[in-house]
């Protein structure tokens, strides 16, 4: 029997390695997406079967006889022993968002190969390890949060740095996601109306749940889902009426202000009215879309039109500046390793686990699933012809204003697309133009529409519906992250602020609520505005900032994990977290230093500020900049971006130094290796208590 199993796993390994080999070596002809799926799934299977088992058994010695917090602290509310499949679904719905969809789409400018390798290898050795280690650590500590563990395991300096860093990451994350939505809805009446309608739909559900049928979540969700489809058709109807369409054709600036008003409202309004119903809707749509995307890819098995590597690996890419190393590893964060997950793995999830060994499936397994979503997004992007892909994703500054200039610019890069093709595609999906719709969402939507209509067949009308359906769900995810994030950011701000002004920390005091909400919206709104007026499209400078901040949080999580492993007396296995930590520190540091000090104005924040200052001194306006005040604003923003990058880099150094001091103290014997785990208590209660 053992021999059969060993042979089976050997076959999986050979299949995976073979598929990766095909992806890496086949040149000059299109590779089928099937190879990519096989390479990813085989690697995941081996990582799960062997590496997660190693972490479970050797590092944490997970033991089903040991009581988990859900049993010891059972309170029927937060701490509830829950079946592992339910926890898996819940955890996956919480960690999966727009991140794994957008990052791989942008990184496709390097070709498919760098993305595949980083997503698949990064998750098995990094992202899934981080999630599982933090989850295990939190289970053994009554479900404590990452911030608390950083403070208690490493020290107050690391704890405080982590707290401020989380707030900074929140701000950058919300800003970049808001920018993705704004770019997707810009001059698109159909999209704007459909997304706009999701807000009253959520409120209707909220009212239903509050007054009509309290607690009937599934009923309300079913009504909401039906209304979403109605909204999709309503958007199309509006887009077909010239007068109405003109009224809903909004500029980036108008949309940015609307998104800020929405964020503020979501933070101030009661959660039952907007946030909670939106969340339910979003969870359904999320799971549904992941399943649909997987089916679409499996049925269509599209050939990858994008080459394995493009000429942009040298750093001259139009979508974002910077060479393959380190920027591919910054651009794709969610999908390979995402620091944000550590907040969830030490948030709701550890309070639900029924048995310790479930942590393997939930911590490691759910992250593999998210990684698979990233692989699918990459497939959807690479199944487009490169010409179309670059026409949608490259900024105006690179493409020029018309389909003719765009086709010429793209021909210059060595890809072929005709102006007619571009105009026809835009018409097919029901938009006036698809040029320079930066941010990744429209290109993913085109890719998905393409997949769905080739899997199911259908007319041009169907293609337009699929496109707007995809856009709607992406915006739904993003706005759900944005509203909840604004609210959480507000509470964090109030928590920090109460040390200075106690009344500010009173969450039920209206003036404090309004003031703190306005503050947090102003913080991310500033970055959003900067992205909207940026002639390079904004995603250019904001996405790397987001990548760096997310990886910084991952570095914090891995520092906490390493400290915990060492204090458990398992220093000999600390390489499991030290390896991804070392890689992340190298990547973030290199990327951060390049973004700060590169002399290339497209790349370095300071270099760009200097070029703009020189233009201001000479009294000229660089291409795409509309006024002198806008120019001054751009200069100030470049300095701000530089300051934020510097802050993130310093945070990495502080936390790393503080952790290293603690590791040395324990390993050298100066400090006793004392684990802070809650002592063993046997499991008593049956499930359901």
């Amino acid at each position, binding site marked *: 029997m053992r021999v059969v199993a060993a042979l089976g796993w050997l076959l999986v390994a050979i299949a995976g390695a073979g598929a990766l080999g095909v992806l890496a070596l086949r040149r000059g002809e299109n590779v089928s997406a099937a190879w990519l799926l096989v390479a990813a799934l085989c690697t995941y299977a081996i990582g799960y079967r062997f590496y997660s088992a190693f972490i479970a058994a050797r590092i944490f010695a997970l033991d089903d006889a040991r009581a988990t917090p859900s049993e010891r602290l059972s309170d029927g509310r937060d701490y509830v022993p829950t079946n592992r499949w339910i926890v898996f679904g819940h955890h996956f*719905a919480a960690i999966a968002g727009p991140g794994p969809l957008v990052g791989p789409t942008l990184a496709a400018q390097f070709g498919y190969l760098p993305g595949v390798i980083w997503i698949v290898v990064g998750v098995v050795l990094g992202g899934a390890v981080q999630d599982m280690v933090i989850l295990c650590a939190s289970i053994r500590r009554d479900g404590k949060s990452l911030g608390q563990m950083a403070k208690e395991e490493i020290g107050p300096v690391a704890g405080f740095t982590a707290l401020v860093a989380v707030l900074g990451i929140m701000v950058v994350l919300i800003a970049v996601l808001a920018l993705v939505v704004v770019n997707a809805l810009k001059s698109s009446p159909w999209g704007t109306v459909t997304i706009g309608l999701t807000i009253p739909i959520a409120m209707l559900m909220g009212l239903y749940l509050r007054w009509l049928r*309290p*607690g009937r979540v599934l009923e309300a*969700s079913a009504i909401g889902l039906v209304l979403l489809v109605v909204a999709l058709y309503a958007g199309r109807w509006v887009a077909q009426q010239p007068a109405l369409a003109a009224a809903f054709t909004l500029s980036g600036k108008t949309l940015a202000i609307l998104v800020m008003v929405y964020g503020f409202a979501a933070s101030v309004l009661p959660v039952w009215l907007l946030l909670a119903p939106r969340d339910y809707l979003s*969870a359904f749509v999320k799971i549904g879309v992941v399943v649909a995307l997987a089916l679409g890819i499996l049925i269509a098995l599209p050939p990858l039109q994008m080459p394995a590597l493009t000429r942009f690996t040298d750093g001259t890419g139009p979508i974002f500046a910077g060479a393959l190393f380190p920027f591919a590893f910054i651009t794709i964060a969610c999908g390979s390793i995402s620091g*944000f997950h550590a907040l969830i793995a030490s948030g*709701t999830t550890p309070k639900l686990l029924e048995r310790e060994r479930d942590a393997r499936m939930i911590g490691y397994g759910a992250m593999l699933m998210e990684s698979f979503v990233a692989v699918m997004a990459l497939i959807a992007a690479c199944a487009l012809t490169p010409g179309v892909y670059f026409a949608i994703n490259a900024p105006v500054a690179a493409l020029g204003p018309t389909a003719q200039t765009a086709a010429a610019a793209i021909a210059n890069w060595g890809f072929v697309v005709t102006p007619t093709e571009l105009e026809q595609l835009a018409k097919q999906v029901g938009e006036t133009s698809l040029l320079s719709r930066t941010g990744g969402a429209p290109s993913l939507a085109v890719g998905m529409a393409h997949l769905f209509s080739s899997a199911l067949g259908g007319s041009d009308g169907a293609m337009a519906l699929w496109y707007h359906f995809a856009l709607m769900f992406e915006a739904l995810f993003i706005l759900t992250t944005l509203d909840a994030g604004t609210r959480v950011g507000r509470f964090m701000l109030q928590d920090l602020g109460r040390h200075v002004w106690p009344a500010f920390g009173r969450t039920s005091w209206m003036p404090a609520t309004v003031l703190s909400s306005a503050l947090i919206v102003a913080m991310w709104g500033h970055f959003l505005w900067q992205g909207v007026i940026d002639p390079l499209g904004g995603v250019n400078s904001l996405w790397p900032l987001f990548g760096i901040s997310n990886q910084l949080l991952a570095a914090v999580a891995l520092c906490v994990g390493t400290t915990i492993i060492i204090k458990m007396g398992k220093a000999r296995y600390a390489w499991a977290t030290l390896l991804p930590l070392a890689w992340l520190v190298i990547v973030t540091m290199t990327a951060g230093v390049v973004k700060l000090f590169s002399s290339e104005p497209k790349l370095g924040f300071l270099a760009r500020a200097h070029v703009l200052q020189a233009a201001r001194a000479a009294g000229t306006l660089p291409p795409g900049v509309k006024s002198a005040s806008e120019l001054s604003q751009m200069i100030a923003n470049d300095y701000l971006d530089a300051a934020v990058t510097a802050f993130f880099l310093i945070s990495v150094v502080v936390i790393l130094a503080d952790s290293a001091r603690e590791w040395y103290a324990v390993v050298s014997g100066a400090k006793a290796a004392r684990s802070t785990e809650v002592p063993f208590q046997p499991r008593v209660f049956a499930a359901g208590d």
Partner: protein
Amino acid sequence: MRTIVGFVQRAAWVLRRVIGAPDYEQYLLHVARRHPGCAPLSRDEFARDALARRYDRPGSRCC
């Protein structure tokens, strides 16, 4: 017939838990077993309390 109704109810319960809806029955069961004699929150109070707990701190959502 009873098994079909049971299956649908079970599936609905799983869906509710996956999307993170609070589970009042579970809470009542908990109070009855662990704190006999204590008066549990009403369904409405429980729902409000669950929402406040879910949204007033980080750790429930990601990118």
